[in-house]
């Protein structure tokens, strides 16, 4: 009954939708499947794809293994300093990625104690795949923490209390009850973290200009060859983003 009532907001909103639809359509219509496949088989593109597919899953794994427990503690615990930790975890989301990269460099850059020690041991933390993982984890990690935390918070405590009263200790209860009941949110968080890690650009550029990932290779190829040079990698990343969206929704 309210449909005509929404006319004015619908017009304004429609304009905004167009603003997102036009670049999408223009971009997709500019290229063909053949061009994409051909473009992705150049040596530079293949290295970039390989590097991205090596680093993003590792960053996602690290963020998940450490972030889901953190999310549980934040959802269930109450302790001094919780507020500070919550702000710290959200910070990378509002800090510009280039600043995030700069922050990482001040911590693990090659002239810092940590960075120097690592480089001496043969595992340089900058301009290396490990550096890419560090940048991706820093920027993308908060997603899995925040989403999983919301998932745990939406599981009524009484489910866990029931499990305890049925004879299971706290860790067994988390494993048998909390994780399965929050699985939807956790999976969404993992997928978001993966998408963000795969697309990470600003911080990666700062921490590891080389070796190239797909986003940094897009930038380098754009400087060298303009928009058409980057269509294949761009379409590939866009396709992953669309798939990710499908999984989350």
């Amino acid at each position, binding site marked *: 009954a309210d449909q005509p009532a929404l006319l004015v907001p619908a017009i304004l909103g429609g304009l905004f939708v167009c603003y997102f639809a036009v670049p999408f359509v223009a971009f997709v219509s500019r290229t063909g499947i053949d061009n994409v496949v051909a473009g992705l088989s150049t040596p530079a593109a293949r290295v970039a794809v390989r590097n991205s597919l090596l680093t993003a899953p590792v960053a996602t794994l690290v963020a998940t293994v450490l972030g889901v427990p953190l999310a549980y503690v934040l959802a269930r615990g109450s302790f001094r300093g919780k507020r500070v930790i919550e702000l710290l975890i959200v910070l990378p989301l509002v800090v510009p990625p280039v600043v995030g990269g700069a922050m990482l460099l001040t911590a693990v850059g090659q002239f810092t104690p940590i960075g120097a020690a690592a480089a001496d041991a043969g595992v340089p933390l900058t301009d290396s795949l490990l550096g890419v993982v560090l940048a991706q984890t820093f920027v993308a990690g908060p997603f899995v923490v925040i989403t999983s935390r919301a998932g745990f918070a939406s599981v*009524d405590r*009484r*489910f866990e*209390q*029931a*499990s*305890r*009263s*049925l*004879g*299971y*200790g*706290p860790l067994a209860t988390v494993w*048998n*009850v909390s994780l*399965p*009941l929050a699985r939807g949110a956790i999976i969404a968080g993992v997928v978001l973290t993966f998408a963000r890690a795969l697309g990470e650009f600003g911080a990666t550029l700062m921490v590891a200009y080389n070796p190239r990932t797909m986003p940094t290779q897009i930038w380098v190829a754009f400087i060298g060859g303009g928009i058409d040079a980057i269509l294949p990698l761009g379409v590939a990343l866009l396709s992953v983003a669309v798939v990710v969206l499908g999984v989350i929704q």
Partner: protein
Amino acid sequence: MMLDIDGLSHRYGTEQAVDDVSFGLADGEIVGLLGPSGCGKTTIVQAIAGHLRPTEGRIRLRGTDVTAKPPESRGVAVVFQQSTLFDHMTVAENIAYGLADDADPVADYLDLVSLTNQQAAYPAELSGGQQRRAELARALATDPDVLLLDEPLSALDRALRTEIRAEIDRIQRETGVTTLFVTHDQSDAMALADRLVVMQNGAVAGVGEPRTLYESPPTPFVADFLGRSTTLQATVAAQQPLTLSVADSRLVFDGRTAEFPTGTPVTCYLRPEALTLEPQPDTSSLPCEVVRVVDVGRHYDVTVALETGEELLVEQSTQSAVGTATRVSIPARTVSLFAPDETAPPE
């Protein structure tokens, strides 16, 4: 005693939720813990189950102090108001989850609650009543020393409520499990419990058998909480038999003695269903006039005004006309007297 609550107190920050509560459950007994929301019932449940460490007091199970034990090693099973069946497990898996090692197989518990045909179903596929029964079966499968039922009927509609109430009654009698039934609903509590513990503002307001508490409530709060009351201001005029004066009239209650000295003003708590309207004068009736009649289906709520202007509520099974002059008869047995300073309004 199977379960002993001894001097339990709990504060959340500066708020005293439970204040020095003590009571016990004998083996096989079903006790109703009754009180309005916010009276501390939930805190007591959480403390007995082990999810909350009380500020003060001890909880003993079979004589052993369990106050510091974690929930998983207490032998206390809990059923909450909202279902806590695990969505990702079938009914049989839910029951097997808590099954005690030396206990009967899952099939016996399915049979106990008549869910044998639903054993492979997931909780979301069950009706509301089936969910409640599955939850009872899961709790009983741990072979608990004490079963805590925390408002198990409050989320159900009337028909289902009656059904599950009868089911709890049957199961408790069949298994003989010691049960603490927590509720804010006096009719559920009175129908199920051997004994009642009535709570008010974190403290125990009365303990006893349902009928005794109903007919001789220890405080005005208990009187109001266990059923509808109507009150009458009077003064003790004589003892043996108890005689009250209400304005110019006198009420003589044969066979009763007052707990108050002659001349004390008292508030009488009366049960509307115990009052009757009879034009014939007798020694325990007062003249009155019908001022309002509400038809609530199963009976009429008749409000009468005394000569003092005070109004009394009377439940009648027949219609009365507004304006009728009659007398309200007050049976001696059903009158509870309180000093005026005892009579705080119910929460």
